[in-house]
């Protein structure tokens, strides 16, 4: 029989303070029984001799200094996993919430260890999402972490759902494909939207969901992505599966972290977020990738909303410093009724260089993408000028650039939620829009490729 401690010193927000503890270790899970019947889980977050600080998952409401008992479990936080997790729904601490029980022999520590860089395999295979702006200009690679930077009210959920629906990886891998979905602080209807989309695309039995909604305890928001990534690692590295992890919303996650940090009276850094926000986010994002010993992969698409659409806000900023690029949605394009409203200029896929071109997508892809970026940059400059001096007074060449800009947005970007384009289609559209400007402007494309693809 384990020792149970019956008297607490203090309760502060999500934290319990307990003294006289005989034995406890850092990160240990504890079991809290309130009023003799209600179980809550907690975790040791600080030890000072026999005084221990415990972070309570399900929230501290209902706990008083002497109506509860605390027992130390002797292990860190672990969740049971087997292949049967596919198709199931769990809460943020890994308890099933879809009405059935879940048992498995093996339990896994959710904190995850760092992958040895020597054990990694550099990701090089591309995933066709069927979305032109992504496939053509910010290509997603299997094993990449590529977040969507969005804003409140923008269609990031649709974009993520469309990727899930359309994602195609080359070769036989498709059969071995599954999705891990981590919901953090999102609203009930958003979670429902995803569920319905998974159902519509017929993948519901290949999805594992870990759900912590906006009104669920915030402490569990911290463990939600860790449970999800532990499941993803299990499926990818023990069962060679290709896992797409959608994590939404990282901003809510970071806010939960801030709330707990301030309850612990830690020294805040930018905007009140704790100084370790970077390391903490990295401990999630770095769990993407491929390894030498397994055929599987973990591709992450974290979604975050930029408060005030500000990309310099700590959450998008630190995310961008860790992930391998970012896909940025633009309110301006959204208001022009363009879907998906991807602002390609600040968007980037760092891994695309190795996954595109001859033998991967098509020989013209790298140069072509480069040319489109440079042309569209100039479109922005011309638009700014036209604002000042009027469209009539700009040079003829610049007028052509304006036309290119219009075509880019209407033909390439604006494809709608249903269109699923092949990479060839996407690349052909890119050539198409470049025809708006004279051939001599195509300085970023090799002449051979211009001869081969620039027709008319």
């Amino acid at each position: 029989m384990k020792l149970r401690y019956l008297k607490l010193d203090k309760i502060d927000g999500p934290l319990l303070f307990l003294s006289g503890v005989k034995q406890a270790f850092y990160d240990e899970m504890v079991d809290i029984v309130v009023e003799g019947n209600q179980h809550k889980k907690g975790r040791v977050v600080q030890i000072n001799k026999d005084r221990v600080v415990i972070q309570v998952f399900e929230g501290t409401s209902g706990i008083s200094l002497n109506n509860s008992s605390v027992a130390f479990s002797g292990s860190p936080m672990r969740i049971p996993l087997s292949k049967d997790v596919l198709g199931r729904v769990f809460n943020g601490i890994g308890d099933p919430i879809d009405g059935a029980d879940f048992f498995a022999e093996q339990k896994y520590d959710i904190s995850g260890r760092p992958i040895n860089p020597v054990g990694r395999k550099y990701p090089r295979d591309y995933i066709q999402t069927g979305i032109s702006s992504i496939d053509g200009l910010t290509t997603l690679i299997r094993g990449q972490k590529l977040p969507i930077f969005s804003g409140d009210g923008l269609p990031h959920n649709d974009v993520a759902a469309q990727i899930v629906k359309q994602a195609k990886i080359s070769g036989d891998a498709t059969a071995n494909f599954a999705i891990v979905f981590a919901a953090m602080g999102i609203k009930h209807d958003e979670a429902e939207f995803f569920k319905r989309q998974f159902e519509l695309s017929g993948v519901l039995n290949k999805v594992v969901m870990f759900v912590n909604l906006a009104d669920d305890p915030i402490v569990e928001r911290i463990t939600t992505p860790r449970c999800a990534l532990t499941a993803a690692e299990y499926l990818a590295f023990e069962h060679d599966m290709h896992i797409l992890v959608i994590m939404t919303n990282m901003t809510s996650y970071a806010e939960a972290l801030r709330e707990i940090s301030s309850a612990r009276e830690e020294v805040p850094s930018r905007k009140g977020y704790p100084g370790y926000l970077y390391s903490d986010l990295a401990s999630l994002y770095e769990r993407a990738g491929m390894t030498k010993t397994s055929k599987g992969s973990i591709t992450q698409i974290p979604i975050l909303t930029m408060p005030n659409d500000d990309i310099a806000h700590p959450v998008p900023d630190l995310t961008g410093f860790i992930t391998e690029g970012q896909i940025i949605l633009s309110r301006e394009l959204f208001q022009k009724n363009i879907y998906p409203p991807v602002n390609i200029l600040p968007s980037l896929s760092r891994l695309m260089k190795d996954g595109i071109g001859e033998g991967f997508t098509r020989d013209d892809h790298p140069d072509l993408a480069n040319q489109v970026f440079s042309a569209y940059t100039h479109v922005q400059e011309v638009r700014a000028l036209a604002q000042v001096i009027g469209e009539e007074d700009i040079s003829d060449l610049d007028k052509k650039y304006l036309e290119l800009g219009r075509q880019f947005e209407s033909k390439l970007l604006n494809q709608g939620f249903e269109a699923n384009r092949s990479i060839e289609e996407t690349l052909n559209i890119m050539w198409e829009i470049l025809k708006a400007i004279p051939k001599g402007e195509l300085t970023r494309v090799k002449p051979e490729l211009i001869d081969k693809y620039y027709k008319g």
Partner: protein
Amino acid sequence: MNNEHSKAKIIYINGPVVKAENAEALKMREMVLIGRKKLIGEVVSVENENATLQVYEETSGLEWGEEVISTGKPLSVKLGPGILSNIFDGIERPLEQIYGMGSTFIPEGIGLISIDLNKPWETHITASVDDYLEEGSVYATVQETSMILHKLMVPPKTRGKVIFAEVDGRYNIEHIVIRLLNDEGEEVSLKLYQEWPVRTPRPVRQKKAIEKPLVTGQRVIDTFFPLAKGGTAAIPGGFGTGKTITQHQLAKWSDADMIVYIGCGERGNEMTEVLEDFPKIIDPRSEKSLMERTVLIANTSNMPVAAREASIYTGITIAEYYRDMGYHIAIMADSTSRWAEALREISGRLEEMPAEEGYPAYLPSRLAQFYERAAYVETLAGNEGSITIIGAVSPAGGDFSEPVTQNTKRVVSTFLALDKALAYSRHYPAINWHNSYSGYVSVLKDWYEENIAENMMELRAKILSILQEERKLLEIVKLVGEDILPDDQRLILEISKVIKVGYLQQSAYHKDDANVSLSKQYKMLTVIDKLYEAANRSIKEGVPISKVKNEEIFYKIITMKYKVSEENLELLDQLMQDIDEYYSSLEKMYKKGSGQNEAEISEVR
């Protein structure tokens, strides 16, 4: 070494910060082993009978009451053959070997392993009995890789007469190859390695003046903002602006003898990429694989934060050791901001008084001390060697006014400012030519004049002034459009485009353009200068800009970086002739007064 167990016991655990009581015996900055798993840590403060430790491994699972064992020595690294071509964690533990233990993931409690103790090395003994060896003098050599001859040196503050010298043979690094009798009459055994505390700079005879460039093969750097052997540089930039790619480019192509690459709090995949790519890349100078001169230190962003703080020191200590052999080392730290943040995180957990933005008050001095370890030196043995430090800086929000960028700026001489707007338009490397600078331009002037060309630096200044001029003109263009400008000013805009697209832009991924010799850089500059001068003359003669901007000629110049290979640089002379011919005939035509004759002009082309 004092391995005796102290009775220090853990009383407090908070992430990487642990406190121990009963710790009077622990010394400041001493390395300790913590708990049953023997996690590695370092004493960062001592107060009464309590000591505070920073732990280089995950503390999850640690209990209060577990023992803390003193090692009696400061955090040190082993220095000997087996460092090159390898990858280590922040405290010099070999990641290959750890991987070989059977897991893809890094476990904790691996203990204090370092370079391979068992691998035999073909050793040539250079000292003989009765020689008197001074500190720093070489007593044996090992061909560590095909590129680097490893010189075993008498450690600093050690000297004496050789009383035993091993014969040449294959030995592991624990083998005693030399015994000295020092001036105090004590015997000193020398093996194939020595140990050195990472936080202490290794001594040199003297620091020397900086006068040679670190040639990088990157046009914007070598031509405009040069690095110097023994110098310092910072590469600040928001996310995705190209810090890592630039550092990789320098690691690949710079003319250092050896590269120490520290991945400090960055991505695992970036280290993997180096591990996969470098062995396949051939160094143009030695024609050997680049990995032969490279050592990697990896503390990726998800590895324990305290080891991130140490990784910088581990890297620089390794660099100093090879410098002492008389090599020129370039050390890249990507990113120094993560190191500063590690300082901040630990400082916060120690409840120290924060200064600017939560960083500890000692941030500026730590940064200065680190960069101070770069220098061009005369080694203890009297050779020349150097360490060049190139640090990436990752300012929050890309805003250079934050403390790490500002404090770094104060201590480095070359500042390569990466620019978001350039990166967005895919102008790579996105080094902004208005905000960047190099403090070495004047000291390197002589070198460039002697080794490249008399007028290289003049050309540099001229091209930069064209770009300055362009900046002013663009302000006007923004308001009124380009058409209003007189033709000579429009020419400035056109030439600036050529400079930007044809010269400054340099793709790291283009097989022929990733690395460019200084002679090609110089020739390309003269071509652009020729174009400007000839075109400018034509405009003065009244030729309209529409004719001066001949698409064919301009296209040839913009693409000369791809079309003219290092072996055929004379093609650039040809190009200059083409320019001359085209513009002279253009001028002639306009002088004749019949200038509007299209047919005649295209004939000339």
